[in-house]
């Protein structure tokens, strides 16, 4: 039984080259900016001491490969440099921004599952009929909705009828935060659910015709129970993977949506850092997002193995 989970120990080793590659790309990106790297990283108003400091920390007079070595050495010590705008360590800065992004991703996924499962169920159980086609057209349309625009349309539609919903910022207490997350997560969920709906519908149709369902029906099980006990749990497995594959897209969505709603998460931090040429922050956020993507795919592998006893990795 447990040997199926052995990959949990070996898989992270396969991630090492990818993480190494991620660090090389982020390193190269920032070094491609023309000009003195120390000045690029510290901004035009940097003091000579600060420049000398960063020069020694990153070994900026050394050949490129040695500079990369210093870069990795600093990374392993949790040193990603300092933000020129916020005047604190990049890693510290990112840590304060993780919570809103994580909460947004969590709420969006939850909401989109709540939207997608019932709609896919209705479509699958009425395959080929009008409802099915209607759901398909809606999901084809939904894929093309720009999140930033959908967000504003939701503000327009909902803030009029429900004036209590805040349209920007993030609260301090738990309930306040949740209220602030309603519109942002609804925006992402409406797009994400269209993607999930297609895959769920196809999987449900397959499982409705499977031997499992037929056997259950033969035992005299009512169709409703066949559907919710056998078809739905089986159909959700490929959807977990689809969510993991789409995590990069989902993170991209949070970057845009956080900017629309002024939600102080990592995405908003990234966009602001780009405008203020705070390259250390850009580098740090990109790296953290990339590692998060790799990690989520790892979690999805574990979830798939746990959900389906036949899967071996």
């Amino acid at each position, binding site marked *: 039984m447990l040997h199926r989970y052995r990959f949990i120990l070996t898989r992270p080793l396969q991630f090492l080259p990818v993480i190494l590659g991620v660090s090389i790309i982020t390193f190269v990106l920032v070094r491609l900016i023309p000009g003195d790297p120390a000045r690029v990283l510290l901004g035009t108003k940097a003091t000579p001491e600060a420049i000398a400091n960063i020069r020694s920390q990153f070994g900026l007079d050394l050949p490129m490969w040695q500079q990369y070595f210093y870069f990795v050495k600093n990374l392993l010590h949790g040193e990603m440099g300092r933000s020129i705008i916020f005047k604190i360590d990049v890693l510290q800065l990112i840590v304060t921004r993780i919570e809103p992004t994580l909460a947004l991703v969590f709420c969006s996924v939850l909401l989109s599952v709540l939207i997608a499962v019932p709609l896919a169920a209705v479509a699958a159980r009425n395959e080929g009929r009008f409802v099915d086609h209607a759901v398909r057209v809606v999901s*084809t349309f939904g894929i093309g909705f720009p999140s930033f625009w959908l967000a504003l349309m939701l503000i327009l539609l909902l803030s009029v009828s429900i004036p209590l919903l805040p349209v920007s910022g993030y609260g301090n207490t738990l309930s306040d935060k949740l209220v602030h997350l309603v519109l942002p997560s609804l925006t992402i969920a409406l797009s994400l659910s269209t993607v999930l709906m297609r895959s769920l519908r196809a999987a449900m149709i397959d499982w409705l015709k499977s031997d499992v369902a037929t056997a259950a029906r033969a035992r005299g099980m009512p169709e409703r129970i066949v559907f919710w006990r056998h078809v739905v749990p089986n159909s959700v497995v490929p959807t977990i993977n689809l969510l993991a594959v789409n995590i990069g897209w989902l993170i*991209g969505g949070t970057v845009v949506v956080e900017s629309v709603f002024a939600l102080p998460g990592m995405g908003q931090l990234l966009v602001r850092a780009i405008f203020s040429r705070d390259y250390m922050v850009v580098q740090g956020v990109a790296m953290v997002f990339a590692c998060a993507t790799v990690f989520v795919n790892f979690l999805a592998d574990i979830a798939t193995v746990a959900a389906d006893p036949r899967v071996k990795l």
Partner: protein
Amino acid sequence: MIRTRNATLYAGLAIFGLFVLMALLAPLVAPYDPIFQDAAARLKGPSLAHPFGTDNFGRDILSRVMHSARIDLQMALIGVAFPFAIGTVIGAVSGFLGGFVDAVLMRLIDVILAFPFLVLMLSIIAILGPGLTSFYIAMALVGWVSYARLIRAQILVLKNSDYAMAAQSLGFSRLRILFRHLLPNAVAGSIVFSMSDVVLVLLSGAAISYLGLGVQPPTAEWGVMVAEGQSFVTQAWWITLFPGLSIVVLAFGFSLIGDGLAERLGVNG
């Protein structure tokens, strides 16, 4: 069945054609200059004189939406063309040669795919500076990986096919076999994929412009227009509604073309 397939494809092509027409004819048929500011007609709702209303500078929204089609179509098509071409060549060569080259390229693809698409795009644009050219460069640097993967998988299968062997035994050069025999049979999947990719590119380009890092004002572009209308959304909804709706309809057209092509070419989208 054949009729419905064609219906999907043709409906998509019709929508796409309509936008192409709008883009080409915008200077002739748009009622106003897209950047002309009429101080007397600020924030006016839809009327006969301004069917889509005007923005806070008194610019005509309909004319701006029409002119935007020129930029957004170009953005979507160029944004797909470069990654398609680069990815196809890299994927084909990688799959055909195999060995060390293949291993290195595949690891590079793994690394690029580890980054969330938009995050890597934005990081590259951060370095190149905002603008449409930066968007194209970033798109070419990031977007090729999906095409390379698709083509490589196809080539791996096809290079062991009977006709590849036949061509080889006839003494054709490796280059000729790859580009004249294998590649034409391998691209169907990529063409279908490019239609869902073009939606992604359109949405990303508009989003990046919305964030202020793509097309720069006062140039009319749908994402830029939505950003400009954001502060007025509750009092002048028409500034944001129409450009966004244009994106949705054009994206829907591309999706229909993709679905239609998938069925016609017998590829699973």
